[in-house]
């Protein structure tokens, strides 16, 4: 499958949240739709479809990227992690626990994309300053005004990880 064979659907294997999945879609299909509609992973959300809001962010080989703007072919052979893959109620990621502890969020639509950006930051810089957190979340929009609670949550998660 290549960028050129964009039109026709083909079956390919995708590495998502630590497991191999078979999906069938055209090579130019945005990764977001594949994750949501074929794999039933609804954490990555549609917000703009043009890489401007961060609602659809996922980790690809550890980098936070917009899945709405990433064609399927560009994700092949790479490790994809969505917010579901970071943790769940039984095994929450420190960032997820911290968001709950800080009650960071109102509608929460922006949160999975923000989690992904923050996870990439903490992997790169385990003890970020507040300004690092704000810079790392600069491409994530939140319309509800939950920003400050989210920033506190990321700093709290960094502390929790360092205490382990």
């Amino acid at each position, binding site marked *: 499958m290549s960028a050129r064979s964009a039109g026709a659907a083909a079956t390919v294997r995708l590495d998502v949240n630590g497991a191999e999945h078979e999906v069938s879609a055209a090579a130019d299909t945005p990764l977001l*739709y594949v994750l949501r*509609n074929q794999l039933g992973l609804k954490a990555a959300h549609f917000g703009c479809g043009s890489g401007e*809001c961060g609602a659809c962010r996922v980790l690809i080989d550890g980098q936070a990227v917009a899945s709405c703007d990433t064609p399927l072919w560009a994700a092949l052979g790479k490790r994809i992690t969505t917010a579901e893959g970071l943790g769940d109620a039984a095994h929450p990621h420190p960032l*997820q626990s911290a968001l709950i502890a800080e009650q960071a*969020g*109102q509608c929460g*639509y922006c949160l999975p994309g923000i*989690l992904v950006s923050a996870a990439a930051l903490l992997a790169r810089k385990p003890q970020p300053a507040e300004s690092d957190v704000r810079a790392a979340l600069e491409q994530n929009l939140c319309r509800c005004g939950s920003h400050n609670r989210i920033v506190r949550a990321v700093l709290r998660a960094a502390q929790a990880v360092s205490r382990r």
Partner: protein
Amino acid sequence: MNLAYRLAAGGAGDLPRLPGSLHLNRRLSQWLRFLPDGTIEVRSGKVEIGQGITTALAQIAAEELDVPIARIRMLPASTAASPNEGVTSGSLSTQESGSALRYACAEARAIYLEAAAARLGLPAASLTVVDGEIVAAGGARSSYAELADDALLEREARANVPPKESSQHRIVGTALARLDLPHKVYGEPRFVHDLELPGMLHARVLRPPSPAATLASLDETAARALPGVVAVVRDGSFVGVLAGHEEIAVKALTALQQGAVWHEAETLPDASALGDWLKAQPAETTIVDERGVSSAAGAAHTHRARYTRPYLAHASIAPSCALGQWHDGHLHVWSHSQGIYNLRADLALALALPPENIVVEHVEGAGCYGHNGADDAALDAALLARAAAGRPVRLQWSRADELSWAPFGPAMAVEIEADLDAAGAILAWRHELWSNGHSSRPGRAKTPALLAASQLGQAFERPLAINPPLAAGGGAERNAIPGYALPAWRIVNHRLLAMPLRTSALRSLGAFTNVFAIESFVDELAAGRGEDPLALRLRLLSDPRARAVLEAAAKRANWAAWEKREGRGHGIGIARYKGAGAWCAVVAEIEAGRDIRVERLVIAVDVGLAINPDGVANQIEGGAIQATSWTLKEQVRFDRTRITSDGWEHYPILRFSEVPRVEVEILPQPRQPSLGAGEAAQGPTAAAIANAVFDALGVRVRDLPITAERIVATVN
């Protein structure tokens, strides 16, 4: 149309008055149901729009029933079963739904105590409820679960069982964690956008390129030729496409865009002169309020100023979405609407169906700050699902749809004049405003207010935006009556009778602009007298709760000890939302560099009894950050034909690096009735920022947003 609106419009006849929404939804079984497994199902007609209402209402129910919150199951609102509570708007949900639930649950508890008393052969007065167990002093027990019987609540509420005193509250008044947040943090499917039904098709609508455009011709060939396209629907200027896969629907939409020829017309105002345009339109003029004699006689000086704000977009983080499915002439719709019954009424009009044939079920959307595209998307989904042969259809708006087709918060112009005596005291005050109506909500006109209804071949005339009655808080005139003790005033509202851009309710309606204007003007008067703006306000305010929030905010911000430094300023603003809701005062501290940067907002609020104090703080903080974004950055952009701010690049909102620190102090008022918090901070925040800009630069910016260019233009 929330309950307050319906009551203002004439309510439930001669029936005895019951608290909140209980008045119009009088059967107890409409509100709650006890299950044999110990769970209690609670229904509200108010819906979660990101404000945390579900958690607050669950707290109220758990409190009155004496059960742990985990036993309460809040059911989604649906026209098939829920109480009709109008619209979730106006910061009225804790007042309307909360008080109904308090009384309904207190009464239900008493009914179950009676049932237990009969079973145990003991007087009801000897029984208490502990965690859902009904216990007698002697050790005899029963429980809600054991007694669960739907017939017990099949009766009219009488509201004759007093709810708990605030001193007895154990759950209400505590900062309980949001019930919905864990699901959202783990990325579980939760939003209407995430709903997936068997056999579901994906749909997109081809919206015209400009508000007045009509479809001249459409070449559907390329779209239809795409493998996987199920149908192309065209009805007048309404066009949509259905496909098995979402990406195919998107491709087909692009093909349709290329195949469409539109008639367009220059119908939009000159965006650079909105104030003049607003004043020049035909309008319906009403006197909002008048007191004393507001003539200039005896005045040594009259101070005048005009303030404006542009059209604002809701700019929800999620474009609107809805699902629709037809079955035997019956329609089922899943929507993030704020008012499921009103939506149903307009769907019935647009589709020529009896309302009984339609079920509207609420599923959460992203944060909603007023009348956005949710209802419109529901009609789109219903229209497109007609071509789906019984399969469910998921319709998703694009970002451009959301930013250019959801109703806008109306542009406004406000002119204030004050007659002053030689000592600078205010003799009379005049406030005149020009604006489109602030509500185009569905469910109240003879023709449907839904977007697609005006684009169909058999088009319905789009109703003109109106203002909710003043008794329900008003629309454009909301907060136009000053909260100050002034000897005379005259408040005039001009509602525009032309509506080139569709306008409707945006968080706080006219209050944002009116408070911005009034509180800026008061600052101008203070500057004219060389008086401290806080001192002047305290002199003019007699309402003790208003004074209390003002003093609390000033104290916390250390107003008196502010050190003036080059390029920095502080400012203050205050209002009581709607003149009847929560009191809120804001101190803003800003730095004027290349742009205005708000560094800190210190806010004090009085919301009466705070059901969930952290929820209140969260809403106030979120509202203040959003208001900062409106004040500094936001305006719908357009040329004479088209909306041009159809992406985030052209409709920027405040980002993480630009967000101020926010401190919220909630004044404790456990004995006062609860008041909504969602909108109280909007106007005071804008005013505080504008006043801080003046403090920093000596420049009075009266036209929002306060951008660097605006400041330069004002200086010149």
